[in-house]
């Protein structure tokens, strides 16, 4: 009954209220039925408390990457009139994805299905009790693993928002992110990491998400920037970041949280986690210095925006490599990422003329692809079990390239279709007047004084 009432409400507001609420209504209905979780016969016997401690911690760290980390990283870069709308996007995506992940996302990505997509055995987390375990994480409770993976599913769409900052309708953004999660993120995650996934099975190395998270988000961002078009006044009016202190806080929390992202991807508090943390730190620092050095030489001054961007580029590039490379490889990957992403974010965007507002593509797309390729170069058999080009396994580079290509193509096509559908249904972009006034006031009725 209750869900009926909500349902009719939903229809009335179809153009404004996103689909998630329909799903939520469904949830309410199903919840009463689903409350009887199967009892645990021998609960907790399989759990390694140290591994679980680290994965609980990692989950908190990765959540912190998105809120407040990414929210601030992006929020500081926009004009003051859009800062609340920008942080709102990361926050709302966190909420939306959490619920969708619980409903069906986790099941689609991380339960057995076919080579492209998982099954529905964990629809509404059905059957996930105290003693459940996912074979991908055998020493911790499935509840921990599900939540850990949830935080990855949260940050990936949130990264996309940097590409279209300052001009997308909030309702369209919610629809897009919800659909993208299910239509793009879940299958790619399944193909690379899921049980029986095609790309993972073919040997694509992606330790913590260079492909699944960063290329995926970067390419979707580029497509969105192209479909939406440039910001009003872009290229004519100055649009300087209003508060880089916020951006610095964001970059720092991304860095700190990334220990959970990369070292957490060991899914255990083991030796590989330690190594993943060490190489993350080294690559990030090297990338930040690399970006700063090139900026200093080509543009006369080192900037805080530059060094923060470099650090993020390094974090992105080391993500696929973390559990596979040695410290020396990390140093090179970091340096390369900092320098290359400087050029893609600073020059390439100008040449090609798209308006990727906060460089989601220039940093995450390019940095992710670079990292994925260099993983194939610097992988060390003694660390991750797979040798890279430097150890004689030249073929790995091709496998990595395949992973990239599949992701780019699938992602670009589906993202484009989703955007066109939403544009047709409710429109993607705010009016010019709303954009001029600023999204904080026009979309959310709030402002920073």
């Amino acid at each position, binding site marked *: 009954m209750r869900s009926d009432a909500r349902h009719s409400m939903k229809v009335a507001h179809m153009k404004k209220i996103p689909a998630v609420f329909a799903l939520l209504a469904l949830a309410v209905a199903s919840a009463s039925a689903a409350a009887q979780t199967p009892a645990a016969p021998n609960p907790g016997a399989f759990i390694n408390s140290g591994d679980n401690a680290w994965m609980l911690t990692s989950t908190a760290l990765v959540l912190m990457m998105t809120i407040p980390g990414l929210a601030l990283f992006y929020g500081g870069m926009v004009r003051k009139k859009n800062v609340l709308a920008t942080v709102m996007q990361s926050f709302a995506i966190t909420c939306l994805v959490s619920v969708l992940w619980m409903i069906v996302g986790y099941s689609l990505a991380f339960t057995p299905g076919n080579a492209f997509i998982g099954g529905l055995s964990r629809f509404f987390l059905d059957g996930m009790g105290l003693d459940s375990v996912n074979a991908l994480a055998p020493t911790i409770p499935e509840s921990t693993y599900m939540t850990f993976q949830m935080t990855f599913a949260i940050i990936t769409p949130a990264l996309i928002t940097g590409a279209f900052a300052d001009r997308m309708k909030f309702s369209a953004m919610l629809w897009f992110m919800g659909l993208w999660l299910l239509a793009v993120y879940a299958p790619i995650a399944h193909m690379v990491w899921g049980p029986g996934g095609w790309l993972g099975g073919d040997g694509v190395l992606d330790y913590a998400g260079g492909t699944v998270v960063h290329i995926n988000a970067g390419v979707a961002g580029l497509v969105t920037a192209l479909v939406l078009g440039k910001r009003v006044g872009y290229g004519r009016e100055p649009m300087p970041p209003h508060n880089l202190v916020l951006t610095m806080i964001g970059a720092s929390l991304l860095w700190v949280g990334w220990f959970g992202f990369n070292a957490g991807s060991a899914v255990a508090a083991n030796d590989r986690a330690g190594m993943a943390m060490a190489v993350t730190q080294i690559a990030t620092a090297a990338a930040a210095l690399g970006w700063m050095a090139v900026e200093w030489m080509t543009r006369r001054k080192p900037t805080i925006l530059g060094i923060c961007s470099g650090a993020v580029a390094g974090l992105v590039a080391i993500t696929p490599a973390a559990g596979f490379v040695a410290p020396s490889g990390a140093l090179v990957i970091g340096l390369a990422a900092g320098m290359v992403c400087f050029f893609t974010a600073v020059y390439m965007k100008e040449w090609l003329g798209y308006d990727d507002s906060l460089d989601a593509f220039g940093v995450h797309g390019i940095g992710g692809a670079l990292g994925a390729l260099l993983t194939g170069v610097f992988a060390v058999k003694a660390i991750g079990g797979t040798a890279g080009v430097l150890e004689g396994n030249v073929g790995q580079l091709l496998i990595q390239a395949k992973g990239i290509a599949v992701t780019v193509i699938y992602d670009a096509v589906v993202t484009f279709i989703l955007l066109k559908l939403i544009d047709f249904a409710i429109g993607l972009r705010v009016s010019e007047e709303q954009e*001029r*006034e600023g999204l904080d*006031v*026009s979309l959310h*009725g709030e402002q920073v004084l």
Partner: protein
Amino acid sequence: MKMIMAIIRPFKLDEVRESLSAIGVTGITVTEVKGFGRQKGHTEMYRGAEYVVEFLPKIKIETAVPDELVERTIEAIESAAKTDKVGDGKIFVFPLEQVVRIRTGELDADAL
């Protein structure tokens, strides 16, 4: 000499500055202000409370010009700042008795 003060829309500042430079106005002082007028404000909501914010962000520019430039200055501001929508703002002309350049002590027209 006159002091010309104009209230304009914030995003028009650069255009106005350029069109003033074009006619030879070399000094401008700019202030962020809030304007109340015919253009209606917006509503803000914070939990229980709903506020009508009647004051809108505007830019005030002030430029002192010799008498012969007054007309052209007004025109330059007008044409650059106009969008034909309510809220474009106003230009005010004040008598100005004396100007001193602090650095040199130069007076009046020389000081502009």
